[in-house]
């Protein structure tokens, strides 16, 4: 019986929710097509994570555990994935779309002579591969694509599928792996600006995004306050990551992250298509902008036309009231 293999991303021992979304989708497809759904965990703490993954219903769990996977380094990860594919012989390997999975997707495809689809928003099995949908042209339109071959490799946008819990007594199988440090040509020296315990943007239920309209300390303070009232993740437009006000990891959009929260509040953001590409799938979109013709109002459910410096104080105050009730 052929296998659909889902890569489970684990950072600092924490499982990325979006990879559980992908696993849930693969479980569903496996049931439909009479296939096996398996999870693959490659991490320094893979066995710990495997216990947790059982609650999400895979038929099997494969682990590769090695200290080298504490941080993302592409060469060993590639080697590990390659051995896992050789052993499991899956017809599909699906990843949540992250900077790490995007880093290796192409190389893995070249290594396995396999078709790859990046950043899909939907996927379906066919007789000899996969059919999928991908947003293109800065997410202005959707392309329906087909990949033929085995295994098909794909990364899936966060928020594309719901996570379904269903406990299983999946067997856990460790795949043997070794990596000679001497083979490491590129070396990781340091990680800076590590996210720490901040809220992960791509998984946040509420996202506050700040743009060029936020001009000074006072503005930034209001953003922080709003975020803490709503327990929200803070993101930004390129205007503010480029100028160094926010860390580039907080950029939302075509170059940056894709978010799909329940609530997105864009503050002083014009709504350039490249930004919109990263937030259009939010459930409720609120925009605060003083320009009534700003393009963001074309997609906002609630468009507040006004100076953010005048709108935010009463907005925050009212939300505090609501929260306290």
């Amino acid at each position, binding site marked *: 019986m052929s296998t659909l293999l889902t890569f489970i991303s684990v950072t600092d021992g924490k499982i990325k929710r979006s990879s559980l979304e992908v696993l849930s989708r693969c479980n569903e497809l496996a049931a439909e097509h009479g296939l096996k759904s398996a999870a693959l965990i490659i991490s320094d703490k893979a066995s710990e994570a495997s216990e947790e993954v059982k609650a999400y219903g895979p038929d099997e769990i494969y682990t590769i555990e090695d200290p080298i996977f504490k941080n993302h380094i*592409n060469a060993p990860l590639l080697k590990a994935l390659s051995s896992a594919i050789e052993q499991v012989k899956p017809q599909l390997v699906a990843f949540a779309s992250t900077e790490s999975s995007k880093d290796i997707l192409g190389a893995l495809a070249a290594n396995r002579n396999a078709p790859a689809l990046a950043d899909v928003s939907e996927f379906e099995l066919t007789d000899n591969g996969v059919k999928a949908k991908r947003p293109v042209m800065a997410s202005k339109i959707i392309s*329906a694509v087909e990949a033929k071959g085995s295994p098909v490799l794909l990364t899936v946008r966060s928020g594309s599928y719901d996570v379904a819990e269903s406990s299983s007594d999946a067997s856990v199988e460790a795949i043997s792996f070794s990596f000679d440090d001497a083979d490491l040509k590129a*070396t990781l020296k340091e990680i800076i600006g*590590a996210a720490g315990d901040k809220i992960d943007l791509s998984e946040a239920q509420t996202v506050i995004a700040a743009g060029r309209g936020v001009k000074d300390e006072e503005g930034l303070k209001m953003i922080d306050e709003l975020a803490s009232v709503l327990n929200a993740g803070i993101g930004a437009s390129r205007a503010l990551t480029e100028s160094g006000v926010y860390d580039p990891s907080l950029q939302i959009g075509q170059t940056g992250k894709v978010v799909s929260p329940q609530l997105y509040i864009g503050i002083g953001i014009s709504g350039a298509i490249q930004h919109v590409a990263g937030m*259009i799938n939010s459930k409720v979109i*609120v925009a605060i902008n003083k320009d009534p013709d700003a393009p963001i109002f074309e997609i*906002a459910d609630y468009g507040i*036309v006004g100076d953010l410096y*005048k709108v935010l104080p009463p907005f925050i105050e009212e939300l505090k009231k609501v929260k306290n009730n």
Partner: protein
Amino acid sequence: MKIYVCIKQVPDVNAPLQIKDGELIQDADRNILNAYDASAVEESLVLKEAHGIEIEVVLIGPEKAKETLRKALAMGADKGTHIISDELVNPDSFVYAQLLAAFFKDKEYDFIFCGKQAQDTDAGLTGSMLAEFLNLPYATNAVGLSLDGSTLTVKRQGDAGQEIIELPSPGLVTCSNDMNEPRIPNLKGIMQSKRKPVDMISAADLGIDITEEQIKTRVLSFEEKPAREAGKKYEGEPDEIARKVAQLLDTKENVI
């Protein structure tokens, strides 16, 4: 020292487009240098200015794409190779990477720069595919670079933060547009670009014959995105509208 930069011509996503019977109709004249590749060219030029490196750009594309190659030369690259791709009907990233790999097979270089993704399809595959084909160490999504001797220090935007990676020569880097503001060619640059050498070769010259059936991924059709209706715009007294929307988010949307 020598750096190659792989550049692609892409349709301008800001130009009007239309879908008819599943086909995408775009203004064939609105093609531009992929923004991420422009950043890769810019970064190579910054290194060239500091370290005196030779910069060559490589583009696979139809005859008409030569203006994009000229643009990179006008920015300051020293020479170009244009791999004419007319006969390839619908190449995907894999095909481009194969062609590029064939081109680089017998070349000498220190680094290859690519864009992190093509602006129109956002695939982001070619760079790391090429690295694997050429068996090169690589780093993707670079947001900063510096050169020390023959080692490139790459700052890449990762999931956990910014990873600082040391990449020995030869190696490959894919560049984000977050690392710089690409220069706009000046008049001298434009004039000089006309005299810079451009090699024109074909896929056949590279000994590669790709047939439609071999292509692993292809686009079946294009669809409109389900339209997102504009909601209500609130104008007027800031205090009033701010409170009003805050309440609605709670009572009507239930997202607070």
